[in-house]
């Protein structure tokens, strides 16, 4: 019986191997940000339907993993919501002997979301309240820092449970980039980065893990990419922007945040705390990280073709998943940049 099992297994493996060689499919692997994971997961699924021989396997492991693995060369492309730093770019150049290119894909919002039994209203958060909560200085839900912006809501006196990311995260970067711009205490304390020495709270892995933990934990607050809050029917707090207005996250308010964006040639730009009355303050672009030189012609073809597809067909799918499509000027600039991939 064991022999039969073994021979069946060997036959199956031979069959698989032959499938692999006869049809010449392209398999690409990417890893990184969880912030755009619902978007990418949709895109790669749709792209595969349109190109049956091409499989792009995207693993959402956090932006830190995206930068690490693309630098190591263990994945074909990385993804991050934090542009690579100058040191990281230099390290990439040393390791891969070629520069790294940033391609913005969509724009999204990081929202404060909470699991507060008995409170259904959408709360309003001032930047000071958010910084205070995540610094551990605002400890109770009915603290004046929160209550003063929400006079109509009856807040419980329970302790606030902070939930943050346990992994290296672009979502953390966007959130702490915002806090660093608006709160001197935060800037002097934890600072901005993808992996933070958090003063308080519980760690969850990925945006998925953070929201999973939030749902299991009463009286908790977390920050997450908007789509995760929407898909899980969680409340999203309004955040006060630079113009003093409380704004709800939406594709429109994210687009408004990008209205005055000055796009540099390397596409590395921050749009947190943007000016404009309608701008949602914790907005960000998210990037694919692609080596400029790709030896394998087949893979190079897939990547350039996918980038073109993503900038045209792909953009149309963004609003349904609560992401904002890129401004037309950025799309044009990126199309020109695709030609740099050799």
């Amino acid at each position, binding site marked *: 019986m*064991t022999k039969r099992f073994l021979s069946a*297994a060997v036959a199956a*493996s031979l069959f*698989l*191997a032959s*499938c*692999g060689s006869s049809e010449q*499919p392209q*398999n690409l*692997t990417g*890893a990184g940000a969880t912030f755009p*994971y*619902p978007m990418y*997961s*949709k895109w*790669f*699924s749709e792209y*595969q339907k349109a190109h049956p021989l091409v*499989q792009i*396997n*995207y*693993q959402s492991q956090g932006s830190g993993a995206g930068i690490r693995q693309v630098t*190591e*060369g*263990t*994945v074909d492309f990385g993804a991050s919501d934090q542009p690579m730093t100058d040191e990281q770019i230099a390290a990439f150049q040393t390791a891969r002997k070629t520069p790294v290119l940033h391609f913005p894909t969509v724009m999204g919002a990081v929202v404060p979301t909470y699991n507060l039994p008995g409170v259904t209203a959408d709360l309003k958060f001032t930047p000071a309240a958010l910084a205070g909560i995540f610094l551990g200085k605002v400890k109770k839900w009915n603290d004046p820092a929160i209550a003063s912006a929400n006079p109509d809501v009856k807040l419980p006196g329970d302790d606030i449970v902070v939930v943050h990311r346990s992994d290296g995260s672009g979502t953390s970067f966007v959130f702490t980039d915002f806090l660093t711009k608006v709160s001197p205490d935060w800037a002097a304390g934890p600072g901005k980065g993808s992996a933070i020495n958090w003063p308080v709270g519980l760690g*969850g*892995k*990925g945006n*998925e*893990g953070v*929201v*999973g*933990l*939030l*749902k299991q934990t009463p009286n908790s607050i977390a920050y997450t990419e908007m*789509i*995760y809050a929407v*898909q*899980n029917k969680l409340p999203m707090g309004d955040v006060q922007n630079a113009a003093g207005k409380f704004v709800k996250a939406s594709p429109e308010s994210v687009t408004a945040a990008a209205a005055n964006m000055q796009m540099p040639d390397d596409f590395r730009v921050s749009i947190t705390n943007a000016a404009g009355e309608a701008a949602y303050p914790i907005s960000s672009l998210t990037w694919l990280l692609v080596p400029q030189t790709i030896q394998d012609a087949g893979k190079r073809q897939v990547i350039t073709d996918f980038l073109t597809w993503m900038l045209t067909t792909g953009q149309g799918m963004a609003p349904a*998943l609560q992401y904002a499509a890129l401004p037309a000027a950025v799309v044009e600039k990126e199309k020109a940049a695709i030609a740099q991939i050799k």
Partner: protein
Amino acid sequence: MTLSFRRRAVNAVMLTLTGVCTFLVAGVLLVILGYLAWNGATSLSLDFFTKLPVPVGETGGGMANAILGSAKVLLLAMLIGVPIGFFAGVYLAEFGDSAYSGVIRYATDLLNGVPSIVIGIFAYALVVQPMKHFSTLAGGVALGIMMIPISLRTTEEFLRAVPVSLREGAMALGASRSRTIFTVVIPAAKNGILSGLMLNLARVAGETAPLLFTALGNPFWSSGWLQPTATLPSMIYNYAIAPYDDWHRQAWAAGFVLLVLVLTVNVAARFAIGRGSARGRS
């Protein structure tokens, strides 16, 4: 009299407590199996076995690719771990009375004690970094290394359980040492060794930690052996910590399928060993 009463009371209380402990543990077992069976069975559907995962947040889909992925990783693990463990076990049982075999035994014990996550780090450095690719192969190597120690131990144990009279008989008929081992001793221990292999497979089938940074994951069918692949245990992990109810449902289904496989193999192998060793001893 009072002393004797106290002693009898202590006796009764303590003996009862030991019974309580036993039924507490048995109760936990029943709750675990029951809860998992209930949640798993109600979550299972045909789609689970036939479909691919759907994009994040959409409902439906299945884990067909993860089931095949697990099978492929396990097949590789078996091809790597079992021959090494088996032949080394033969060495220890049949040639193993030197100081060197003491060293091998010690190394095997060390390897057996290495936490699975550390094996993951090792396989990453051994396969993923040099090959510049996460792959089914890397996952197979990680689990294969984990299979070696147990494979060695079961082989050695069952070979040593073969009665000396069998060996002597074969040698008396003029067979060489190696011939005796490969045509008489090993066939006599075959049942035990195969059952041990099944138990060993069942043990690594549920391993998740060493696959996180070797096999990685894959929402599609993984072709060949050099592509990343989804596996059942890592899908359970990813789906369980995610916030989607439909993923939770599928995590239960996957947990149920995995548990049924693992327990079935365990029960079957234990019965086989029970029969085999009873016959060997008599």
